[in-house]
């Protein structure tokens, strides 16, 4: 089976799974783990959008 992901979908999947691992491993309580996982996910996806806009500006 072969599939092709766009750069964006690959980045979002990466963010989802990496955030899950970061949340579980870097915090102690369940509540802290969920909050940290969501924080990491937001930073990853926010970084993707920020980098996208920077590249758009550089291209102009």
């Amino acid at each position, binding site marked *: 089976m072969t599939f092709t*992901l766009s750069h964006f979908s690959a980045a979002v*999947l990466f963010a989802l799974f990496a955030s899950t691992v970061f949340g579980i491993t870097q915090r*102690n309580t369940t509540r802290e783990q969920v909050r940290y996982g969501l924080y990491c996910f937001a930073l990853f996806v926010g970084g993707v959008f920020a980098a996208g806009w920077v590249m758009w500006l550089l291209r102009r």
Partner: protein
Amino acid sequence: MAKTSTEKAANAAAPEYPLTTIAIVAPIVGWLIPGAGHIIQKRYVRGLLLMISVVAVFLIRKGMNGRVYGPNGGDILEMLGFVGDLGSGVLYFLAMIMGWGQAAAAHASADYGKTFVIVAGLLNFIAAADAHHIALGKKP
């Protein structure tokens, strides 16, 4: 009652987190089978989530035909790529046995796939270290 000097010396010498058998076994099992280091310590939900995350990242790589690094002594980045890939434990050995990721990259997504498999390994290293900390008692 005041402690004797012998008791004080014994307390000072005793490590805060003594190394137990499970503290050695858990990270090894966790490295070989992603999430299993947590599962054997009865952290079932955490273990399953870690397993799903690492296996999913690895399978995405397979779908994108990303390269899997074999043992090598060449370029430093290739050697680091091998170390990262090796972190996936049995998934890496399975990939080597099945010959996955040996073909030349045909399109851009194969390059993402190569990165995904390295990330899967590195995430699993973090999970194995976490299993070690749980076994030591540093983490609930």
